[in-house]
């Protein structure tokens, strides 16, 4: 009896596990970005090109493949059999918010990186900024308005910050140094309720260092309250209602006193 019970439970668990990916797919957001400047690429799955002529900056929505496996995923120089990235069998996450970016690693070799994105709500009046190092360049510091916001960020890493909506002046320098400025100074706008994700891409030595950005919107929180009043409205004539109440009280008192006097007799 006990063995039967275990078998039944195991079957139930297994069927749930296999069933879930279908529904979990609905909740995933997976974007693929071509983050290597200067080279068009073809993307192949299972030995066949599924996408050709992918230009630097192009973005594809892979959300419908959440939980699925891309067999023998390759990124090739467009129009050739020259494989730039050989990712092998690649299973995409079943749920969550992700960005897959083809980029240059620290030594300048093309690679695929997967980043998970925070799509939780931002506080009222705030937005979110994420910076990611996806360039053939050494570790950097990212400065905002002259102060270090993200320190010692190396290829493949990044950081996030929630901050009040507004515009900041951003620069990127070699870590621990104040010059040379390798990116910026640039005005960077943090929009309320949005998550701005900035990737440093390209190659420092190849003089192609730049940024690509994506944005996740719809994260805003309304104000906690709308407090639009702390005193009573005056009447049309401008006399305060408090004064009218006082006058009314006085009138009642004048009428009442003679009654009291009469009753004393």
């Amino acid at each position, binding site marked *: 009896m006990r063995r039967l019970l275990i078998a039944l439970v195991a079957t139930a668990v297994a069927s749930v*596990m296999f069933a*879930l990916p279908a529904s979990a*797919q609905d909740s995933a957001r997976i974007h693929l*970005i071509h983050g290597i400047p200067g080279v068009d690429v073809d*993307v192949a*799955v299972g030995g*066949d*090109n*599924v*996408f*050709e002529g992918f230009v630097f*900056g*192009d973005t*594809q*929505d892979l959300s*419908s493949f959440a*939980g699925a*496996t*891309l*067999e023998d995923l390759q990124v090739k120089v467009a129009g050739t059999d020259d494989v730039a990235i*050989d*990712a*092998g*069998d690649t*299973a995409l996450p079943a*749920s969550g918010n992700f960005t897959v970016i083809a980029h240059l*690693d620290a030594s300048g070799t093309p690679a695929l*990186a*997967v*980043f*998970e994105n925070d799509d939780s709500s931002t*506080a*009222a*009046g705030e937005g979110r900024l994420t910076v990611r190092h996806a360039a053939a360049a050494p570790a950097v510091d990212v400065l*905002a*308005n002259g102060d270090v916001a993200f320190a010692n960020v190396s290829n*493949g890493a*990044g*950081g*996030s*910050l929630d*901050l009040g*909506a507004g*515009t900041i002046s951003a620069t990127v320098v070699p870590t621990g140094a104040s010059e040379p400025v390798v990116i*910026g100074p640039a*005005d960077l*706008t943090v929009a309320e309720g949005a998550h701005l994700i900035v990737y440093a891409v390209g190659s420092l030595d190849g003089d192609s260092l730049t940024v690509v950005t994506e944005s996740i*919107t719809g994260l*805003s*929180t*309304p*104000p*906690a309250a*709308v*407090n*639009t009043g702390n*005193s*009573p*409205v*005056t009447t049309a004539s401008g006399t305060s209602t408090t004064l009218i109440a006082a006058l009314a009280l006085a009138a009642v008192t004048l009428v009442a006193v003679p009654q009291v006097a009469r009753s004393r007799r």
Partner: protein
Amino acid sequence: MKTPWPDRLRRSGFDATHTAGAKATGVFALALIVAVLAVGCGTSGGTSESAVMAPAEPTATVEPAETSEPPEAPETKLATPEPTVTSAPVPFGSPLPRADIGEEALAGEEPGPQPVSIMIEDLDIVDASVVPVGVNDDETFEVPEADEVGWYEFGPSPGVEGSSVLAAHIAYDGVDGVFRSLADAEIGAVVAIGFDDGSTQRFRIESVTDYVKEELPASLFARDGDPQLALITCGGAFHPELRSYDSNTVAVAVPV
């Protein structure tokens, strides 16, 4: 105005990343357990976890793509794979707008026309000043002076998609506010908004509702949907000891 950078810094740590260069299926072995557990429990990824890609079974094939019409393919960038036996999903994803490239893109878009004046003849509101506002440090709506109307600058401008919020005092420190008689507005009353580019747009009030403050609908701050104005002030009982009102009075107007 809510204090911007850097005083309201809130760090949330570093993302980890998983980089796949050469065939690295062996590396993913450990990830299988995590990924399978995640699927089994239906959890969504935590922000501090590295994004793992589970290894595939050697015999795994790609599930057929969910059928949903992809948007128009741009130029000739999309290749149509041969309709023969292939493990490739057809079509491969769907194109999205290109990522913005270059430092100039960091600045964001130029804002459109912003409201600068409001007129509601039926309520004797004539050319009242509208100013852009945000939130206070306690995250409440930043209401301006009694003789001004605050336009919530994080939301849409009046007439653009979504709900454009304009709030003003009913009365403040003994001075009647611009929206002192908002509760008397009638259906059909016209609201005229003037913009900083000289244009004007008219709206027609279609509802006036009181809400207990704690139940002010979040939909009044919606960023999408049909354009509407949400005019907000205080209403209901006034509590002198608290110097505050019970309710918010909201008049919703739609473009004429």
